[in-house]
């Protein structure tokens, strides 16, 4: 995964997340939108085979990098919870 920040202001960020696909980006986007401080969160993969995904986040005041970090932490939490619940149920 290599990140390239294309544009960044205090409330907006446009970042290319190289080597990733819808798997991470779509879940990350939905996690970002769960945050009430995030106004816009969207991503685009211009061409399915040759392009890298570009994520755009606009927040209401908070640093977008912080918003992404928190969204990603929430994602980790959700899947960790799934893992523990599933493992527990599956081992019975």
């Amino acid at each position, binding site marked *: 995964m290599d*990140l390239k920040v294309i544009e960044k202001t205090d409330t907006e960020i446009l970042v290319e997340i190289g080597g990733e696909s819808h798997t*991470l980006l779509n879940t990350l986007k939905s996690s970002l939108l769960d945050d009430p401080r995030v106004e816009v969160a969207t991503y685009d993969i211009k061409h399915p085979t040759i392009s890298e995904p570009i994520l755009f986040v606009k927040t209401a005041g908070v640093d977008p990098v912080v918003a992404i970090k928190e969204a*990603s932490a929430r994602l980790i939490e959700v899947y960790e919870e799934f893992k523990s619940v599933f493992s527990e149920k599956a081992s019975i």
Partner: protein
Amino acid sequence: MDVEIIELSDDNARFVLTGVNPAIANGLRKSMLSEVPTMAIDYINIYDNTSVLFDEQIGLRMGLIPIITDLDSYVLSEDCDCNDEGCTKCQLTLTLSAEGPVMVYSGDIQSSDPNVSVADEKVPIVELKERQKLVLEAVAKLGTGRKHVKYQAGVACGYKNVPVITFQDTCDACGKCVDECPKEILRIDGDKVTVTDPLKCILCRLCVDACDIKAISLEEDDSSFIFTAESDGSYPAKELIVQSADTIIEKAKLLNEILESIE
């Protein structure tokens, strides 16, 4: 979040996941299909091939054979310390030699690692007639389903929303929907109709169409998912599901680390 397991065998799993949003469920499905590292043959060195198949066809057939994946002892070749040169941490060597007349199966492949072998021993490779020979060495590596289908551990992974069938008070228990239902999950219970097993519903809406007084409504629960996961044998189904969640966690952690460093 809750998980209810309907069925769990070595290479098959069905479970109901409730209390998550569709993106989380979809991430899990996509991860099972294309992000979980899986062992598969990358290339073969052919010493002798007098069988009826071309070398390239043998190559494809070898590539598609599922191999048991051991993530504790192997790493993805791009993450390996050897810089993709090939070492025992990122590569597994297998050999196959057979002389006709015989049917060559995947079970004839000899692995250099006693802990790792082919997942299914009954995959036919080629039939050798008298005096025909096949001698080759295969090198297996870890990869992800995004690169090639041979690295796809989850072969039939998907989900659908849990159907919610509700009957209005106007229902007169005429029984038309009961006759129509192909899965036979509706039952007349006194003066109303009940659903015996909503998980079996295939959302065909035949019951809704059959009802003359429009007393049935069929909806999908947006936060509950009936998952089906089938493994090709590289992982037990349970491990595949856990591993798919792990893969996303690792990606998210890596993203956080990188964001930390650019700040």
